[in-house]
C-alpha cells in the first residue's frame, strides 16, 4: 500500500431516484497534495463531498482514510477522523459571532461537558482563552482585520470574509484532509486571488494537509492544484495535470460543447 496515499475512494456510486449522480468514481490523494475537482454543473462534485463526509451513504463502493474504511460511519465520526469541509452555499450560522463559528470547528477537541458548563467556569475561561488565541491566529492567517471582527455576527460580514471564516472553521478541526466546495463562488476576481493566496498560506502553515478543491474558476484551479480530476455525469473523464486535463477533448466537450475546439 502506498503510504503517502491518505485518502481514496473505490468505485463510489450513488443514485437518486434512478439517476446515477456519482458513477463508480475512484479518487485518491496523497499527503500534502492539492487535488482540483472540476466538471460542469451537476456532474457530481458536491455529491462526492457529501458521500465522503457521511451526509449521504453510497449505493455501492467504499472510501478509505488512512487505510481505514469509513463506509457507513456517521458524519460526526468521519469528521473526528480528520476530514473537514466547506459548503458550496455557505452553511455558517449567520446569527452567531465569527468566533463562535470558528469554535464549532474545535468542538470535538473540547473535553468539556454539560456539567462543566455549569460548574467549571475557570476551566471554561482557560479553554476559551486557548481556543480564542488559536482562532485568532487562524483568522490572522487570512487577515488581521478578521480578528477585530471576531465578536460580530457572521451575517454582517461581506461574502469573502464569510468564506474565510468557513475555511477557518474547517481548519480549526486540524484536519488531515480538507474539502473545499467552490470557495470562490460569489467573489470578485481580486477577492478570489486573495483567497487563493490565503489557502496556499493555510496549507503551508499546516504541514501535510491534503486539500480537495471543487472550483468552477479555472484560474483558481490552475494556480492552486497539483493535480486535476474532471467529472462529467458523475463519471471521472480525465485525470492529470491541469494542462493535460484541460487539453483533454472529452473535458473540453463537456465544458464548452462539441465545438469547443474553436476557442
Amino acid at each position, binding site marked *: 500500500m502506498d503510504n503517502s496515499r491518505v485518502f481514496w475512494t473505490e468505485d463510489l456510486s450513488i443514485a437518486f431516484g434512478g439517476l446515477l449522480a456519482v458513477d463508480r468514481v475512484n479518487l485518491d490523494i496523497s499527503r500534502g497534495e492539492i487535488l482540483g475537482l472540476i466538471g460542469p454543473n451537476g456532474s457530481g462534485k458536491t455529491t462526492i463531498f*457529501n458521500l465522503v463526509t457521511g451526509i*449521504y451513504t453510497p449505493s455501492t463502493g467504499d472510501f478509505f482514510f488512512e487505510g481505514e474504511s469509513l463506509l457507513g460511519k456517521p458524519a460526526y465520526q468521519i469528521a473526528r477522523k480528520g476530514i473537514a469541509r466547506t459548503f458550496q452555499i455557505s452553511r455558517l450560522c449567520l446569527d452567531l459571532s465569527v468566533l463562535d463559528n470558528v469554535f464549532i470547528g474545535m468542538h470535538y477537541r473540547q473535553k468539556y461537558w454539560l456539567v462543566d458548563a455549569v460548574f467549571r467556569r475557570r476551566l471554561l475561561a482557560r479553554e476559551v482563552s486557548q481556543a480564542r488565541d488559536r482562532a485568532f491566529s487562524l483568522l490572522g492567517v487570512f487577515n488581521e482585520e478578521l480578528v477585530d471582527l471576531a465578536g460580530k455576527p457572521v451575517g454582517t460580514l461581506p461574502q469573502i470574509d464569510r468564506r474565510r471564516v468557513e475555511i477557518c472553521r474547517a481548519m480549526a478541526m486540524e484536519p488531515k484532509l480538507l474539502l473545499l466546495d467552490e470557495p470562490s463562488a460569489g467573489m470578485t476576481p481580486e477577492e478570489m486571488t486573495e483567497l487563493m493566496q490565503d489557502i496556499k498560506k493555510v496549507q503551508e502553515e499546516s504541514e501535510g494537509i491534503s486539500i480537495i478543491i471543487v472550483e468552477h474558476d479555472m484560474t483558481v484551479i490552475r494556480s492552486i492544484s497539483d493535480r486535476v480530476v474532471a467529472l462529467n455525469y458523475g463519471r471521472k473523464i480525465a485525470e492529470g495535470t491541469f494542462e493535460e486535463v484541460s487539453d483533454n477533448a472529452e473535458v473540453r466537450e463537456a465544458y464548452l460543447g462539441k465545438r469547443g475546439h474553436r476557442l
Partner: protein
Amino acid sequence: MTFLDILLQQSINGLMLGIMYSLVAVGFTLYFGVLDVINFAHGDFFMLGGFMALMLYAIAEAVGFAGNALVVVIYLFIGSMILTGVVGVVTERVCVKPVSKAPMLISLLVTLGLGIAIREAVRVLYPRGSDPKGFPTLMPQGSFNVGNIVIRYENLIIFGLGIAVIMAVNFLINRTKMGAAIRAVAQDGEAAMMMGVDLDRTIDITFLIGSAVAAVAGIMNGFYYGQTMFNIGAMMGVIGFSAAVIGGLGNIYGAIVGGILFGLLETFAAAALPYGAENKRVFAFLIVILFLVFRPTGILGEKIFERV
C-alpha cells in the same frame, strides 16, 4: 344486534365522522402546499362556518324568507361558504402571509393566536355566544333499515355531500386552470409566476377554497349533531392536521384517506377497546405519533430528499 350488525353500524359512524375530518384536512393540505404554513386556526374556520350558517338562518327567519327546506339549505351552504371564505382571505392577508416566510414557530403561533381571536370573537359577538347552539332541522329525518342497521336519509345526504364537495375540490384543483395555478404554485411558486400566475391572487383563492370547504364541514357538523358551539374548533384543528399528515400532507386524496382513517380509528377504539370511550383519542394520537416517526410522509405522500 349481531356482531356483524354492530360492525357495520360502527363503520357507518366512523365514515360519517371521517368525512368531516377529511373536509377539514383538505384545508390543511391546500395551505401547506401553497404557503408552507400550517394554519392552526383552520379548525376555527370550521366552527365559524357553522355560526355563519346560524346567523344567515336567523336573518332569513327575521325577514320571513322561507322557501322549502332545500332552498334554505342551499342558501345556508352558499352564504356561509362565501362569508367564511372572505374571512379566511382577509385573515390570510393580514396575519398569515406576513409571517409565512418567518420561522415555522412564528407562523404556528400566529395562527394559534388567530384561532383564539376568532373563537373569542364568535363567543363575544354572537348573541349568547357561549351557549351551545341548536341547529335547525332542515334535513329529512326519515330512515330505513337494512337488517338491523338503521340508515338515515340525512346520513346519506351528508355523506354524499361530503364526497361531492371533496370531488368538487378535486375537480377544481386538478381539472381547471385555476387549480392548475394552485398546483403550480404549490410545486414551484417562482416558476408559476414566470408563467404569468398571479401569486397573491392564487394564495387568496386557496384560502377562499380552504375556508369555504371548512365551512361546509362546519354546517354539516351542525346538521348532523344538531348543535354547534364556539369552542369546537380547536380540537378539530388538531385532528384535521393529524388526518392530513396521516394521509400525506400536500395530497388531497391523502386528506380523505387520513380523515376517514382517523374517524374509523376513533370509532372502533371507542367501541372495541376496554375503557375505549374515554381513551379513544389517546389511541388515535398514538397512531399519529407512530405514523410521524415511521412514515412521516403519510400513506400517500412521496419521499422527499433533503438537498445539501
